[in-house]
């Protein structure tokens, strides 16, 4: 009564999966190598690391997790989740980045100062 699910949902095969694994390992190598290179600013290293991580994550999601072949609704759910996470990150960082520290005639650190540890 039910059609063979494997026919209705192509998901790639062992060859494709092996290729994806190879790509993931190569990308891992590139991240590690790049972390030893000084690009002048630590921010550049972070950006490079995160971009490579995102490529790797996309490969896993698209092929290992079949998003490429599945119904679009699943991709919408996944990307939607990432979108709201991005929102939290962005608006929180906007606040943290634009709080001004109040200059004062009294150069003491504010009350309740940090406990050294």
């Amino acid at each position, binding site marked *: 009564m039910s059609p063979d699910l494997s026919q209705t949902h192509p998901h790639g095969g062992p060859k494709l999966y092996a290729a994806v694994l190879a790509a993931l390992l190569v990308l891992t190598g590139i991240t590690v190598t790049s972390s030893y290179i000084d690009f002048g600013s630590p921010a550049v290293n972070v950006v490079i690391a995160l971009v490579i991580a995102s490529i790797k994550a996309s490969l896993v999601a698209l092929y290992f997790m079949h998003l490429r072949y599945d119904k679009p609704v699943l991709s919408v759910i996944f990307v939607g989740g990432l979108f709201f996470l991005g929102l939290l990150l962005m608006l929180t960082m906007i606040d943290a980045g634009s709080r001004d520290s*109040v200059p*004062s*005639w*009294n150069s003491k650190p*504010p*009350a*309740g100062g940090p406990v050294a540890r």
Partner: protein
Amino acid sequence: MNWLRSLLLPAQGSAYAGEYDTLFLFITLLSAFFFLLIAATAGWFVWRYRRAREQAPTSMVTQSLALELTWTLIPLAIVMGIFFWSLKQYVGASVAPGDAMEIQVTAKKWLWAFEYQNGTRTVNEVHIPVGKPVKFVMSSEDVIHSFFVPSMRLKQDVLPNRYTELWFTPATTGMHTLLCAEYCGRSHSDMLGKIWVDDDATFQKWLEEGDESTRTMPLKELGKMLYESRGCSTCHSIDGTRGDGPSLKNVFAHDIKLADGKTVIADANYIRESILQPQAKIVLGYEPIMPTFQGLLREREILALIEFIRSLN
């Protein structure tokens, strides 16, 4: 509109409060208009279209793009208007003028400590000159508090390990209430202060010599006043009930058992030390949590407190 203003809002302490009230009343009237519109429409429909018989025919209209756009875009335009008006006011209120007088504020459970540039310190009471911008630079020693002056329509949270600030220009002389607006524990609702706005001459005199009352009031009365205004009463009772600190009733000249096992007699020197260096001797059964009042009390004020405690026997 004055009756509405005085029904809904406290007295105005600054020109900013006047501007604030204009915006507040604008939103109030706007809201009242829309509320009455909705209520009247609902009431009219309920009465006009009440079900008279079971099979009464009803309208078949189910949508209208024109109507949807109308009641989307008109409210949108109105709220955008409020947003920009409000933003303009907020920006004006955020940035203190460069010549503002600075007062350092330290909040802790449950009192407000103030320090002037000349080193004068006060607790729960602050004097400022009329007509001049004053900037409070604030931080907290423990949890989050909030510096709230209703008559100035201003409020700012006070955080540990960070400075926040709040400024205003008081318009008339008199007393303004300062409240803590961020919940901070047992005596949160007693963490009140008084902001005295003085004319210039009175303020200068106060800054140099202290309060009229501090100089002339009888010691015992002054002590009672300080006990209530400087935050002593939030932890120390005078009727023998146990608080976060020991009660002050029947303390003077009595034996006090200390946490380290020793016993001392509570004479004037012991009480002075307990006010200025509270951690030096801890009473048995209590936590060492009292903040120091070193520099916060004038000599005569300490004497007054000792006299007051003596009177509680």
